[in-house]
């Protein structure tokens, strides 16, 4: 009963919050913004939007880059798992996931930019040009470099998500049984495991799709700019000094939202169609209609992703300590620590703010997620209202939505306080935490808990010590992902903090516009450092938790009995 009430309050407040934000963009989309004297509702913003010279072309760029990047990421992620499941390569790849996920996407983009640009590292390493060639290797009008950056960013996330749900699928047993029936491994993955995995990771796939279609900072750095992708175009309109641009910007934000919904529907329909068409194939009993080398080929593309990220990170590291580094030098010609010395107090303050916000917002998001999921389980896993709502924070283009929310914060007087920043961070991390936890939590075999309750009659204790303890791997994963999402938030921090609360990210993005590679690289490194640690812990802790806990218990017991016996002896 009480859980139901809590559930209701959570869902209600999130709904109201979203409603205010959405009204905040829908109203100006119809020319209603009393603050600047626009009281009359009209369709002019839409007319202006559709007539804007960049409208069609930037929508096309968004579509190409977003969908291609998501599809490629998904294919590579599946292939990596299917091709290397039994091999050592997967454990190497698995170790690579945390660092890649931890590095904020803006930092990766900055690294890639220097790797791939005509004056970049690859050209310096492999050519003998005296001056950089006039090539278009980045920010290309075909969005290839943007797609590459998105794939680098998203593939590790999808592999992470797939690996997190494998234990629920009894993968090893399935493979064993399949093999004993004469199927080759690739076919087992293709026919049995992948169709089981996809429904479990559908939500994360949609997150990836939405991110790729609406990302601003990544597209600003490495995407095309004449025209830019649609999200960047709207972003520019919102920032225009001419306040009237806000109307068509709002209309654009609403349009982008609808656009994403349509893409989702098409994506899902395409999947169903594919599934329907291949149903016959799946059940023909053919033991080897797909060769392992197909997965291996696609999966090995991940090597390129890995190498790119490693090189990009090395570049960030080199720039952090460089004083002078010109073309065609392969390494900096002079080095300096001045970069770090000068900024040490700043870095301290920023780190404190960043960590306070990330940790508190994620603990809240975790508690809310667990409450909602437990309530959902009790209603026999029926799709709840929240399951539909949870998409919205990710779908709503941040620039538009946050403008509506900004007014709410100012009216309630918490603008510029930690509270409002944390609220917005909960809002943006909650979907990731909830969706990451969703499938593993509901797939949990409840019999363990039932048995525990039957044995101890302590439902709360059993819930904590049996269910949550058994689910600690997905819980830690969810926290780690939420943490890195929180660290990477730029616009929500800026708008809720009203510029009064700065984090590593707000500072990094502020300076990114200055084109100062050295300081930006340093900030990006530090910004990546915290999530990196948390990700490592998320992978390492569940493995050692129980042995460590038992060892500690044993140690304490020994200590206690030692001193006890010592006392007795005396």
């Amino acid at each position, binding site marked *: 009963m009480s859980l139901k009430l809590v559930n209701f309050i959570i869902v209600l407040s999130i709904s109201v919050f979203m409603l205010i934000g959405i009204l905040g963009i829908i109203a100006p989309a119809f020319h209603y913004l009393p603050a600047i004297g626009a009281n009359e509702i009209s369709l002019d913003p839409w007319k202006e939007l559709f007539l804007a010279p960049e409208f069609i072309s930037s929508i096309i760029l968004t579509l190409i880059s977003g969908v291609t990047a998501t599809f490629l990421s998904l294919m590579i992620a599946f292939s990596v798992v299917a091709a290397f499941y039994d091999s050592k390569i997967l454990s190497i790849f698995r170790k690579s996931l945390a660092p890649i996920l931890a590095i904020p996407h803006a930092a990766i983009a900055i690294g890639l930019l220097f790797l791939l640009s005509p004056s970049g590292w690859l050209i310096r390493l492999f050519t003998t040009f005296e001056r950089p060639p006039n090539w278009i290797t980045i920010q290309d009008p075909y969005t290839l470099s943007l797609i590459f950056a998105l794939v680098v960013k998203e593939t590790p996330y999808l592999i992470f998500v797939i690996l997190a749900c494998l234990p629920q699928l009894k993968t090893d047993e399935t493979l064993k049984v399949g093999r004993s029936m004469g199927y080759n491994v690739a076919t087992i993955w293709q026919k049995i495991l992948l169709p089981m995995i996809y429904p479990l990771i559908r939500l994360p796939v949609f997150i990836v799709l939405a991110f790729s279609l609406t990302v601003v900072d990544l597209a600003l750095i490495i995407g095309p700019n004449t025209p830019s992708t649609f999200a960047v175009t709207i972003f520019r309109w919102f920032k225009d*000094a001419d306040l009237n641009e806000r109307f068509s910007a709002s209309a654009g934000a609403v349009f982008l939202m609808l656009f994403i919904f349509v893409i989702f529907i098409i994506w899902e329909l395409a999947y169903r169609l594919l599934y329907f068409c291949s149903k016959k194939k799946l059940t023909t009993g053919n033991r080897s209609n797909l060769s392992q080398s197909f997965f291996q080929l696609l999966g090995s593309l991940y090597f390129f992703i890995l190498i790119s990220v490693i090189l990009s990170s090395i570049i960030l590291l080199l720039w952090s300590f460089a004083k002078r580094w010109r073309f065609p030098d392969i390494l900096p010609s002079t080095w300096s620590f001045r970069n770090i010395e000068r900024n040490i107090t700043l870095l301290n303050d920023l780190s404190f703010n960043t960590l306070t916000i990330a940790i508190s917002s994620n603990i809240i998001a975790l508690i809310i997620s667990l409450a909602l999921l437990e309530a959902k389980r009790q209603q026999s896993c029926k799709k709840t209202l929240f399951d539909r709502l949870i998409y919205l924070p990710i779908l709503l283009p941040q620039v538009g939505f946050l403008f509506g929310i900004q007014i709410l914060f100012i009216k309630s007087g918490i603008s510029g306080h930690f509270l409002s920043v944390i609220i917005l961070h909960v809002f943006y991390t909650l979907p990731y935490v909830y969706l990451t936890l969703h499938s593993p939590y509901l797939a949990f075999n409840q019999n363990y808990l039932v048995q525990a309750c039957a044995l101890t009659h302590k439902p709360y204790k059993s819930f904590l010590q049996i269910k949550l303890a058994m689910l600690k791997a997905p819980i830690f994963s969810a926290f780690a992902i939420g943490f890195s999402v929180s660290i990477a938030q730029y616009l929500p921090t800026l708008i809720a903090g009203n510029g009064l609360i700065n984090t590593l990210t707000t500072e990094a993005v502020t300076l990114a516009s*200055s084109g100062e590679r050295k300081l930006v690289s340093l900030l990006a490194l530090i910004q990546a450092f915290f999530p990196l640690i948390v990700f490592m812990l998320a992978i390492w802790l569940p493995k050692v938790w129980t042995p460590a806990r038992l060892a500690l218990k044993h140690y304490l017991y020994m200590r206690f009995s030692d001193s006890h016996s010592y006392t007795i002896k005396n």
Partner: protein
Amino acid sequence: MVTYIMKKLFALSMLAISVNSVYASDWQSILDEAKGQTVHFNAWGGAENINDYIEWAGNNIQEKYGVTLKQIKLVDTADAIGRVLAEKAAGNENDGSIDLIWLNGENFRSLKDNNFLYGPFSTTLPNYRYIDEASNKSLTLDFGTPVDGMEAPWGKAQVIFIHDTEILPNPPRSMPELLAYAKANPGRITYPEPPQFLGTTFLKQALYELIEDKELLSQPVENVDFKTVTKPLWTYLNELHPVTWRSGTTYPASSEEMIRLLDDQEIDLAFSFDTSAASVQISKGNLSDTVRSYIFDEGTISNTHFLAIPYNSTATAGAQVVANYFLSPEAQLKKQDSEVWGDLTVLSYEKLEKEQQALFDAQERGMATLTLDNLSNSIPEPHSSWVKALENEWRLRYAN
């Protein structure tokens, strides 16, 4: 008759004294009110040296007037405009989060036209006496918008071109020369993407050089035949773009990115609105010491940047104290130091006292910074309505 004049003069001088003392006592009450206030100064935060200067000023202001200066580092000044708007929308009439904004041009016009500003205040600031309004049109007309005391001058900017003397010993000194150079060296010339302000400034500079009747630019764009007037500009750009950096498929985002590209030797010419940019970047190790700056023969676009106070600020007194300090010879001198910032002073040399003049005379410039004399050839900003018109037309033609 003489006595009449004497009387009149006496009366006038009495009036002047009393006005002065009214100002003085007003200013004293502003100083009293300001004590203990915190001024949230919303200023673009993309340059470390500027942030350091603001911090330096903040320490002095704290010491002298007991006012705390807190810089809110903006990525884009328009963000602050948006925040004032959001506060207005939320009915926040007297508890605003912004007390002072660094701005000019479009942003100023936007705030002023919407009645989002406190004032007039600037002409009654004690240090305004060092300003000679007649010396530069941009002190009273901010991109064609009358200042009317609603913002206090802070600094002067002028476009400079930056080149590496080792790679480009004889840089182009006019728009036609620039085009000729680009044709001979494809891929080595570019400019920031409008609506980035320096990109738009490049369009204004080109337009100014390419048209006959330059007076047209000081009029609102609605009053001229935009298509005909700007035709030479688009013809020029159509010729230039195929031979620009990355064949015109993409453009740098800012002056800072251009400077980086110059150092990477991807391009041969960068430009900046900051006259000391080249020296500052050399000393930071971001450019080689063979880099120098120069301006075009016909001059380059120049403007003034200002400080304004939003109508709902909670610290209008403190904000005025800060604006006044930033206008002081002490602060202006420090600001013009190219080791610090290198932003040109708005004060009139003639109106300064002897010792102050001596300090300005003694100031060292960076190795790549032009003298005030070298910079004397300046072009005024066109009326601010040109900005939007040029940007829209540019995007219509080249951004889709």
